[in-house]
């Protein structure tokens, strides 16, 4: 049985960058379709049945965030956003609208491919039934029994810490904004208390990381949010 070739739509108005992204993805064996505007992008995404969209945020004919909202209305496929530095607010808006990950320009082929692979892998996982036991680093979590162990010893987590961790586990390799975490772990009434997330992330790191100041799993994306790396 041959695996179907993943289809990726690249929406980017800069032809040089588009070309490089395309070359890198094709070298990896993906099928790539290009678009240079929001309009074209929506058409491509609608007709090509892509497995993923790579989207530049600065397009000439519209806002990338609107594109994400439109796309999310009918597709759950991963979206990776490309954007310039110093525009953290745009990134957060894109992620809140439903993007899964972002890359800051300039980026190399290796970085791009790593992100694409991670998102596609996550998607294929999501298809199957999620296992109740999950492992990363020295930590083992049994979601069915609600038990967390580290180095084989049971680890006590408070209810919110546990909820936060389960949410992270459910979204590996994606960038999660503070707002997203607050909404899903604390509930909508806390949407503006972003320091809660930060404080609890600190607690989790202290319990789960070898060196909480240089975390390996719960990584901070400055000004944007967090990424959980298995």
């Amino acid at each position, binding site marked *: 049985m041959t695996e179907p070739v993943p289809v990726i739509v690249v929406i980017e108005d800069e032809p040089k960058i588009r070309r490089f992204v395309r070359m890198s993805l094709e070298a990896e064996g993906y099928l790539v379709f290009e678009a240079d505007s929001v309009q074209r992008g929506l058409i491509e995404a609608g007709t090509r049945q892509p497995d993923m969209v790579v989207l530049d945020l600065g397009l000439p004919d519209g806002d990338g965030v609107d594109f994400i909202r439109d796309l999310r209305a009918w597709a759950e496929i991963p979206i990776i956003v490309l954007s310039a530095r110093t525009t953290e607010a745009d990134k957060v808006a894109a992620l809140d609208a439903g993007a899964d990950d972002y890359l800051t320009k300039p980026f190399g*082929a290796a970085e791009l491919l790593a992100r694409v692979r991670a998102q596609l892998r996550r998607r294929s996982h999501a298809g199957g039934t999620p296992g109740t036991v999950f492992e990363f680093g020295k930590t083992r979590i049994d979601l069915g029994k609600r038990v967390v162990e580290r180095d084989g010893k049971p680890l006590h987590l408070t209810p919110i810490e546990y909820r936060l961790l389960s949410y992270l586990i459910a979204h590996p390799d994606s960038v999660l904004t503070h707002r997203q975490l607050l909404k899903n772990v604390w509930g909508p009434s806390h949407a503006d208390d972003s320091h809660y997330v930060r404080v609890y992330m600190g607690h989790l790191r202290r319990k789960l990381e070898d060196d909480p100041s240089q975390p390996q799993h719960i990584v*901070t994306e400055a000004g944007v949010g967090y990424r959980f790396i298995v």
Partner: protein
Amino acid sequence: MSDTRPDPDQLLDRIKEDELRAARGKLKIFFGASAGVGKTYAMLSAASQQLQQGRDVVIGIVETHGRRETEAMLEGLERLPLKDVPYRDKVLREFDIDGALVRKPALILMDELAHSNVPGSRHPKRWQDVEELLAAGIDVYSTVNVQHLETLNDVVGGITGIRVWETVPDHVFDVADEIVLVDLPPDELLQRLKEGKVYLPHQAERAIENFFRKGNLIALRELALRRTADRVDNQMLQYRRDKSVAAVWQTRDSLLACVGPGEGADRVIRSAARMATRLDVPWHAVYVETPELQRLSESQRLRILKNVKLAQEMGAETATLSGSDAVETVVAYARDHNLSRVIVGRDHERSWRPWYRSVADRVGHWAPDLEVIQVARDESQARKPAADRYEESWLERLKAPWQSFAMSAAICGLATAIAAPLHSVFDLANIAMLFLLAVLLVSVRYGLGPSVMATFLNVAAFDFFYVPPRYSFAVSDVQYLMTFAVMLAVGLVTAQLTTGLKYQARIAGRREQRVRALYEMSRDLSGALMPEQIAEISQRFAETEFGARAVILLADDNDRLAEPVHVPGGSLVVDPGIGQWAYDHGDYAGCGTDTLAGSPILYVPLKAPMRTRGVLALEPKDPRRLMAPEQGRLLDTFARLIAISLERVHYVDVAQSTTVQMESERLRNSLLSAISHDLRTPLAALVGLADSMAMTKPAPTGEQVDIAVSMREEALRMNALVNNLLDMARLQSGAVKLNRQWQPLEEVVGSALKSVRSSLVEHRVSVELPEDLPLLELDAVLIERVFCNLLDNAAKYTPNGSSIAIGAAASGASVEVWVADNGPGLPAGKEEMIFKKFERGQKESATSGVGLGLAICRAIIEAHGGRIRAENRRDGGARFVFTLPRGNPPAVDHAEDEALSGEESR
């Protein structure tokens, strides 16, 4: 139940009070019944204890009066040097308040709270100095004798026969944080007196002997004890209120004291103050200005002003009202302010006017629902002043220009002349009518003095020329005496009436003029667009209304007063120090006030709704004119109008500059983002394309791959440079808006380490952040950049294998963060220079960079309100330290979590 809960308003008041108190210094008063009980000694021993506990104690002023045991206590305590104040031809030594404020000890000792300062000092009274020290957050110890308390002053005077003039308002005593009663039984005190251990001021021996009688001492002791007990009682009440021990229903029976023009008004005020304190209710004191009272003599008006001020000092809310009838106005005021008790002085008995009804009766008649309390009159000084009052005012009222007298004499002459031919025709009674007409005319036109004169002239002329025997003052028939009497009466009554009417008309006219002047000024001010115009308008108004020269001093954003606003033709040499004081304290200062009354200029703070805008300096030609209540009100309104106009002008400026700023900011931002986009896009493409070169088919050779890798690296370096330059441009132009959020520092350190991981592979990095480090409000992206730059620098300028340590510690109001290495350190003397733009430790070295990294760090840290510096470590290596303000981190509520965990464990 709701009635067991404390009143929320009261609670709010208490919270506000507590907040105010927290910032203020604490006042501890050593309170005694009389001189010689050992207050100063007790204060000094308490101070030495504080000193032993390591507090910063300084003696502001202490009078030992040569007592040896007290002087011994002074040893080891720092004394603040006294200031020399020139007074007349002497130089007196006085407490130096500015020195104390500069020295700013934790605790200062100020003996004799009731002391009056030497004229020319900042405040007339020492307790005012103490208030200022407390406001500056300095704790104060002081001493007071019971006889110096304002409300007890007359009581003590009554007991001992000696009245002291140096007093402390009761509210100062009442708001003191602690009162320590220094008590000594009278026998022991007398013993000490015999031994010469009690300092006696220069007073007559006899008076002292009278004072230190055992009976007196017992009475004073009782007063002191009772006053202290009252205070403790209040504290108890307060405590109960705080803790809601029980529902204490406070019916607010507020008092209203009526200040009259008479001598006894201060007694009314003192009684009212005592009563209000006892009942723990607020009280008001009002003075009603009626047309009648406008005629009062200068000394009476001054007395009224003094009494109103006295009431204010004793904690009353004061007001000067105007109305045609005093009683009516008082009743209306009482109703408006919900005051249920009216306190008035007892009127003099007027046996010669049995129909006269006293003020108290009339208040009772007008408002039967109000309680009226009459305060006893001081008989010893009852009659005399009343006499001088009438004498003064009568003389005043008889005055008129000499022309009026001349004209009335002429009218009398004319009447006599006209009567001559008519005498043979008409009856004598009708001739008298003619003279009566003359008196009427004079009194209507020329007022009281001339009409009195005319009456007498006419009576004389009528008698001399027409009443038989003619050409003699002898009167043959007694019935003509009746004619004279009627003539005299008509003249006087008419004159009295018309002068009264004229006077009222003049008052009304003056009022109208004031209103018109204010109206005109506000109209002019509403058109003013610049502070200079406002200054000019106010100068004009001050000249016409107060006969004063005026300038305006504006305050800048740092609350410093600038030079006076320049107005053509206006120059006034102001004392910036007094002006600043008035501004800082939001209170009048200078001429005729409590603060530096010796200055010829009055400084009025210009309070606008948002803040005090500056100070109005007025130099009145006649300072007393400004002190009249109606002028005081006018001045208030005047200052307020100016302040509001200044504020309006200020906001017009702000609005304009904001528009300009927004416009230029928008322009700058779009320019910067256009440049950054145009510079970065090709670089991004370059990096990507260099990468994709490796993927071209056929596969590139090793050499080609090397070239591609170098291209990529150079492009990335270029990108870093561009980023630095653009960041610097952004930070410098102020285009960066900090996105500050509360977060743990650890997180920022973590993300910084992640992004510079590649350049740190050859170094050992250790992070040591204290567990209890507070959350910091920072822009994570920018602070990460600071860490990245510092770490990059450390990596660049230290040999491989060096170690880098990141640490932080909270210190006071800020948090100190450092990045230290054990490399070669910084070139000596360049620790500050390296933060400049395009400045590098070593010139033209092989190490890459343009020297913007640290300049960016400094800009970012300073935008956060912190400081950054570099130093060499004692044990080798460089250390970069920056501080960030701590601020007020939000609380993290773990309750929810705990509640959940409780639920779960069930």
